[in-house]
């Protein structure tokens, strides 16, 4: 039975991958109504876009603020948003963006190129922002960030609707940068005027206006009538903070929420329901769940130990039992939905004997185990419960595991300063395979910019830098594969699984898109509810 289910899922996923289909709407779009969407991953904390570093916040802010370009969830390529078009110079270093004219912010002021410049300087200013790695490749941005200059030389306002960014070095994926978290355009005038109070008003130019956010309860947004791409269908959009998966089910069944992010333990409840079973979406997401090792900890500097960890754990069994088959065992760092996925990569199979012998070579055995503390959240899929499930496998080959349970934000604090041995987490949401690898393993980054393991390998750096500068798609992919192979061999992480997101929507909801970046990042401006909704 279980096998059958997995096959069915795989089949569905293949379908999804092949077509990138969105759920078709046969009826006529309808204006009005309220959509209630759960925040399944917990509270977002900060909502000022410069301070949003995790997807929890982006789920809300991406509806209030717009970026220069956006990622089309179906093709995973950049498409126009605030910038209606752009030019790239022949050397690939100069990007000129032509802004859509007449875009209004929620306070009625007009969005111009100086707002763009202001927003970009704001995001690179460590006093205002937690996303200061964003424009690292723009000329003068690092000097600005480090306080060595008071402007970014690579940003030039040509006129009200034209802005030019100059890069330090070639970066083929640069357009994705201005579609990424942190690159939202904020109104210069309002931000300057409001100062720290800006986070209470959150004035953007996106399809929805911010109404309120109550910590632990809900964020409320309403339609922005003057949105430059046309008013969204929904009148109101509410994000309800509902972290407990078991508690979301009765709410969904009672029609109190219009969507649910389905966790494995609840999958069958929906799948076996005659109505809801047909309204489910399953998306292989661009996220990699893994255990990150801190390579500054001496005992973890031995590659054999890290490889042994990878060989020791039967991840397929864990996925089957704890994640209900809703994930693919990871062979490397780039998930199957990534354009950089390498199907030929073997990775680490479950091989306890090999693990034990590697541990023995490194000087450990079950009688003389390597003590390892692993941080994790309460997440049943990539938190302490998973560590507990891995523990018997690991102890058999010579580890002594202590799980430490803490909040995601707390784990961030520790890894920011390197005060950890290992942690289990999920990273991702990045389309560019080059950037996804660079962001965590390139030695040019500081720890707080994302190189949590402090991994360092010049060979890897070389391939990444080559990939960044190579325009030819095939050659570029080759470098990516090489770089990933090095990462897999060096094993600065335990490659656990590539996640699949499952969602279920009420029959009256139309326009849900299978976004592999993150299922909760829906194009809410295109979503509408028909009149069978209790909140029409």
């Amino acid at each position, binding site marked *: 039975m279980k096998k059958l289910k997995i096959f069915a899922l795989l089949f569905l996923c293949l379908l999804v991958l092949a077509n990138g289909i969105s759920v078709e709407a046969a009826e006529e779009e309808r204006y009005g109504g309220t959509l209630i969407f759960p925040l399944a991953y917990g*509270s977002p*904390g*900060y909502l*000022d876009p410069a301070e949003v570093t995790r997807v929890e916040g982006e789920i809300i802010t991406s509806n209030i603020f717009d970026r220069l370009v956006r990622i089309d969830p179906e093709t995973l390529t950049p498409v126009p948003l605030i910038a209606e078009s752009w030019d790239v110079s022949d050397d690939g270093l100069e990007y000129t963006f032509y802004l859509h004219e007449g875009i209004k912010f929620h306070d009625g002021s007009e969005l111009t190129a100086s707002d763009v410049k202001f927003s970009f300087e704001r995001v690179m200013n460590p006093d205002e922002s937690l996303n200061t790695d964003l424009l690292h490749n723009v000329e003068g941005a690092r000097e600005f960030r480090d306080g060595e200059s008071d402007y970014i030389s690579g940003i030039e306002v040509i006129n009200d609707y034209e802005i030019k960014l100059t890069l330090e070095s070639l970066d083929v994926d640069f357009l994705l940068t201005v579609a990424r978290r942190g690159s939202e355009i904020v109104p210069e005038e309002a931000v300057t005027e409001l100062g720290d109070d800006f986070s209470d008003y959150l004035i953007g130019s996106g399809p929805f206006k911010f109404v309120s956010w109550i*910590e632990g309860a809900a964020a409320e947004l309403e339609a922005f009538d003057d949105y430059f791409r046309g008013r969204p269908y929904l009148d109101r959009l509410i994000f309800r903070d*509902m972290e407990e998966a078991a508690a979301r089910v009765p*709410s969904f069944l009672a029609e109190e929420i219009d969507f649910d992010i389905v966790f494995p333990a609840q999958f069958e409840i929906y799948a076996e329901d005659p109505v809801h079973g047909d309204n489910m979406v399953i998306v292989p997401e661009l996220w990699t769940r893994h255990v990150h090792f801190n390579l500054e900890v001496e005992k973890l500097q031995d590659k054999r130990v890290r490889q042994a960890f990878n060989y020791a754990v039967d991840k397929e069994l864990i996925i089957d039992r704890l994640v209900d088959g809703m994930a693919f065992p990871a062979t490397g760092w780039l998930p199957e939905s990534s354009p950089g996925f390498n199907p030929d990569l073997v990775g680490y199979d479950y091989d306890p004997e090999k693990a034990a012998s590697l541990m023995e070579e490194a000087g450990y055995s079950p009688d003389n185990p390597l003590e390892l503390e692993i941080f994790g959240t309460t997440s049943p899929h990539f938190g302490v419960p998973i560590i507990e499930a891995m523990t018997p496998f690991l102890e058999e080959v010579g580890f002594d595991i202590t799980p430490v349970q*803490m909040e995601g934000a*707390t784990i961030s604090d520790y890894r920011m300063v390197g005060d950890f041995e290992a942690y289990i987490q999920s990273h991702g949401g990045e389309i560019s395979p080059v950037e996804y690898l660079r962001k965590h393993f390139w030695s040019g980054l500081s720890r707080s910019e994302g190189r949590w393991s402090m991994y360092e390998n010049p060979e890897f750096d070389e391939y990444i830098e080559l990939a960044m500068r190579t325009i030819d798609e095939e050659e570029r992919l080759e470098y990516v594969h090489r770089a990933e192979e090095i990462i897999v061999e060096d094993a600065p992480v335990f490659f656990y699984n590539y996640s699949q997101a499952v969602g279920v929507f009420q029959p009256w909801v139309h326009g849900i898109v299978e976004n592999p970046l993150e299922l909760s990042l829906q194009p809410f401006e295109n979503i509408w509810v028909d009149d069978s909704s209790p909140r029409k």
Partner: protein
Amino acid sequence: MLNILPGDAALLAGDPRAAQNPEIMDAMRARWGLDQPIHIRYATYITNLIRGDLGISYRTGNTVNRLIVLNFPPTIRIVILSFIFSTILGISLGFIAAVKHGSAADIGSMIFSIFGISAPRFWIGLMLMYYFAVNLRLLPASGLGDGSISYLILPSVTLGIPLIALLARTTRASVLDVMKEDYVRTARSKGLSERTVKFKHIFRNALISIITIAGLQLGTLLATTVIVEEVFSLPGLGRLIIRSIHRRDIPAVQGVIFVFALGFIIINLSVDLLYAYLDPQIKYD
């Protein structure tokens, strides 16, 4: 109690590991003005407190005052709801048990009350959720929903069961005591109808000790919202405090504890005053 309030850097980490790490500490200190000497911080904190300013939460960027105002309504709603129905139910149960002393009703209500006191509230809550929301699908399982009262029924019952149990016991004991008193016997011997004796004399005189217990338990009720809100995912003060502890958001933790403490003190004071009013024999110097 106040000495737990001022935001010391050692407290802000919420666990000792971070407190040992100079880098986390420096970063936190600088961000929240904790690099000033402790007596100045203490003074600032107290001055702000007197002005009603509880500071700014580390994790949400909101003021703690605002967090508290936003999270206050669900908490106060379930506390009031469960207080009203638990007192009514608990007192009636205890009264019936005492008047029908030794009957099956008496024994039954006493068994219920010892269970009610012994069972952990989160377990009661989960069991109620399992039967009424998951199995029978009669009531919503969690959250505030559209704000209708049906969402508050299970949380309020969970919150109230131990209070019902305790009040039933107390009422029974004090009614039994009062029944032995001379004036009740006198009333009876004067030939007043049994009904009058029961309701007028016994009940009124037993009321004093019942009110004291009920009043003091109101404080416990408020504290238990921490558990109940967590079980039923209600966005109230109790959940705020637990989340803030997990996130090491010390200003928020301190703020909520301060508000809770203030609440308990006000409740206790009111009970004392009410007590003095009801029983003129007691004087307060």
